[in-house]
């Protein structure tokens, strides 16, 4: 299994500002992902964080709005840029180990934009 730590666990931010969310894993992982869970809704994949290269974004998500870094096999960051109230969501980091037959999730970052 994998233990995933996300920081911050929650934050309240002013519109127009940016927030960087950190994801630290206790072991080296091949795949890291960022999901968004909007209030009362399911999880939507934002992007795959690729180690040493640019992230791969899903339809509807762009790098300018959600820049992602992955400097090594245990750490990644997601930045939510130029925030608006519509960005209020829970953002979750996820990893898959080895043959990737299971995905593990962090506790999430609850973001409120006012």
């Amino acid at each position, binding site marked *: 299994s994998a233990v995933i730590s996300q920081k911050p666990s929650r934050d309240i931010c002013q519109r127009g500002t940016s927030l960087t969310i950190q994801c630290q894993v206790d072991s080296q992982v091949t795949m890291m992902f960022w999901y968004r869970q909007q209030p009362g809704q399911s999880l939507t*994949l934002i992007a795959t964080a690729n180690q040493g290269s640019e992230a791969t974004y899903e339809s509807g998500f762009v790098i300018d709005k959600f820049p992602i870094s992955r400097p090594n096999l245990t750490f990644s960051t997601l930045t939510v840029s130029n925030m608006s109230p519509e960005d209020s969501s829970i953002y979750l980091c996820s990893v898959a180990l080895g043959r990737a037959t299971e995905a593990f999730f*962090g506790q999430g970052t609850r973001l409120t934009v006012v």
Partner: protein
Amino acid sequence: AQSVTQLDSQVPVFEEAPVELRCNYSSSVSVYLFWYVQYPNQGLQLLLKYLSGSTLVKGINGFEAEFNKSQTSFHLRKPSVHISDTAEYFCAVSEGTGTASKLTFGTGTRLQVTL
């Protein structure tokens, strides 16, 4: 593109009663199927997964699910629920790569267990 349908947004049930949470998926390729549980203010925890082999999968906390390829379903069941099972349950399917790398989630079913 894959999709996952959880027909019931909420399921109220009395403690010690059986429960079934329904999940249907659409995919033209082989898939991996998962059920996750999310307790209030917590992250997601894997309940069980179907990768291959036996279509009846047993998971944690007494839950089980049955993969039915002809009906493209993966319903979650528990013969006797407890108050502590109150949570949000998500069905998820992987892409056709055969890994858990990119998951498509259903909209979730809130299980509310009462005395």
